């Protein structure tokens, strides 16, 4: 009896779709939810930073040069930093060798705050870099660059892979032969070599260039998976039904089939974002990435490498920790998402 009741109750509720079931499975996974919360937190932070609400004044010289983190105390600052901190006390206009010193005094006096040197604190919550920029704000600003590049490039790569995979899998024949040939050509060149080669050719440095490089070299993985899905789906009854009511090939591919394979594309995006954030950091570190003046985690690590020899480890620690936390959370979430969306587990 109770079995029948349960059955009737089940029928009364609307059948749960793939996404509802996947969400339920995700909700049950505590690790996945924690990871999702961390990722969401980062996304909110970079959205605020992009809107200029957070870390907008990261270029303000908030601390003395290489101000140590507060928990270490100002005593850690070595003589060089102390000298730099003392420097503003010597008035620049007193310098007899500077022909512009007098003008500078006039200009300074015209400023609303009377040209007083900005107050620079001896310590900051997580220290300062060579110019006295607050490391916390710099890390957030760098996160904005790195994460935005990762996400936009991942959508570009998966969009391209999905388009080509759909064409290849749906039409087959010569289209498939041609695109699969292109795929085998691209995959026979190791991805990092491919990225460096394209970087060498494109010359122009900039955020758009990196997105383009990563997007154009990253389409092969999504292509292979989406192509296989389209081959599986194209002979299904619902596609034939769409054909029977006169839907065009384009409509069948992207209105009818795509929603049924979109979970594969979504998982690919989540995996590629992680890979691309790491790739951007390496490219920027090597100097093939973001242009000078734009801060990213890669450029922070680049600066930190030299600072380490002076014993200033905080910029390295901040960029490395921020990146590790985001990438770990993103990877764990991507894994859980893949498991939750895997139709085999249903």
């Amino acid at each position, binding site marked *: 009896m109770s079995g029948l009741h349960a059955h009737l109750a089940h029928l009364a509720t609307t059948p749960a779709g793939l996404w509802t079931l996947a969400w339920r499975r995700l909700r049950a996974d505590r*690790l996945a939810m924690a990871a999702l919360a961390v990722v969401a937190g980062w996304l909110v932070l970079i959205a605020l930073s992009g809107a200029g609400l957070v870390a907008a004044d990261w270029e303000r010289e908030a601390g003395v040069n290489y101000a140590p983190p507060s928990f270490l105390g100002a005593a850690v600052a070595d003589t060089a930093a102390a000298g730099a901190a003392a420097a503003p006390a010597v008035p620049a206009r007193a310098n007899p060798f500077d022909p512009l010193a007098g003008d500078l005094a006039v200009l300074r006096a015209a400023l609303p705050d009377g040209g007083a040197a900005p107050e620079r604190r001896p310590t900051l919550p997580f220290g300062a870099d060579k110019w006295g920029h607050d490391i916390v704000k710099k890390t957030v600003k760098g996160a904005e660059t790195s994460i935005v590049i990762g996400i936009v490039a991942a959508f570009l790569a998966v969009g391209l892979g999905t388009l080509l995979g759909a064409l290849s899998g749906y039409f087959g024949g010569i289209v498939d032969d041609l695109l699969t*040939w*292109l795929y*085998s*050509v*691209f995959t*026979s*060149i*190791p*991805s*990092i*070599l*491919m990225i*460096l*080669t*394209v*970087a*060498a*050719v*494109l*010359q122009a440095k900039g955020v758009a260039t990196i997105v383009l490089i990563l997007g154009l070299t990253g389409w092969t993985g999504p292509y292979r998976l989406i192509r296989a899905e389209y081959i599986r789906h194209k002979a299904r009854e619902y596609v034939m039904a769409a054909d029977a009511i006169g839907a065009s090939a384009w409509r069948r591919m992207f209105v009818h089939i795509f929603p049924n394979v979109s979970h594969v594309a979504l998982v690919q995006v989540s995996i590629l974002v*992680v890979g691309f954030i*790491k790739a951007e*950091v*390496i490219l920027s*570190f*090597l*100097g*093939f990435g973001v242009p000078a003046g734009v801060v990213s985690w*890669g450029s922070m*690590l680049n600066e*930190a*490498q030299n600072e*380490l*020899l002076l014993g200033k480890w905080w910029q*390295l620690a901040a960029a*490395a920790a921020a*990146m*590790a936390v985001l*990438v*770990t959370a993103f*990877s*764990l979430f991507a*894994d859980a998402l893949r498991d939750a969306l895997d139709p085999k587990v249903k």
Partner: protein
Amino acid sequence: MLPFLLRRLWQMLPTMLGVVLLVFVLFNWVGGDPAYVLAGKMSSLDAIAGIRRQLGVDEPYHVQLLIFAKQVVTFDFGQSWATGESVGHIISSRLGPSLTVLVPLTILETLIGIALALAVGFVRGSLTDRAVMVACTAAMSVSILVYIIAFQYGLAYRLGLFPVQGWGDSLGENLLRYAPLPVLIGLAVSVAPTLRLYRSFVLDEANQDYVRTARAKGLPERRVMWVHVLRNAAIPIITHVMASLPALLIGAFLLERFFGIPGIGREVILAVERSDFPVIKAITVYVAFATMVFNLLTDLLYRAVDPRVQPG
């Protein structure tokens, strides 16, 4: 076996042509006129025309493509734009240092990966298993840059356990003195993803009927894992190791750059920094070819290891 080999070689041809074509299009069409890169900022029209003639870029595209194809076949890419050294010599002389680091790294990574994967597979689903997997994800999330910077600073510069950087002339000196720290860092980066992958291979096999049979016969768990499961998981493991070899050649480029190892990877970075197109072109083409050849070898090995794979 021979018909299979011939067919595979025949199938490689269009891919090889594709790689040559792709590299050609990238450098000759997308990349703009190399004469302007080569002539530098202070260049006269005469100088540019001279360089164009010398490079052959004033020829029509199909002639240029033929020249490039001939370069690939004869292993003669001319000279490096930056140093004037022959490109063929650059590649052959940089191979040794790369292999000195990569061979020990690959061997150790594979052995450690297999041992840990079997050990974790042995306690699958347990808290230890889950903790190891989370630790792996975390270890994979730290950028290789951070490992390199931290290890080089900590172990070499502060503690003096290794030389900070450098490279010697003899193989023994390089292997014992200069290679260990790069290999250690390579392991720190690569063992976690390898372990995750091998664990999935081990678990795939651990659910098979023959494993249940072996257990039912009363074999100790240790023997089931190390002999029965390992023998079958060996096939995907071999595939993975073989397939990753050519990429490794380049993958260690950061290690080579940081430790001053004169290998292929460092050469690529130098070439990209200097817009030294002949060197990048040559390395890209040959690494792609190496990838294809290793894929073929993997298939052959696959057949040798697994009698179930039909010859054909």
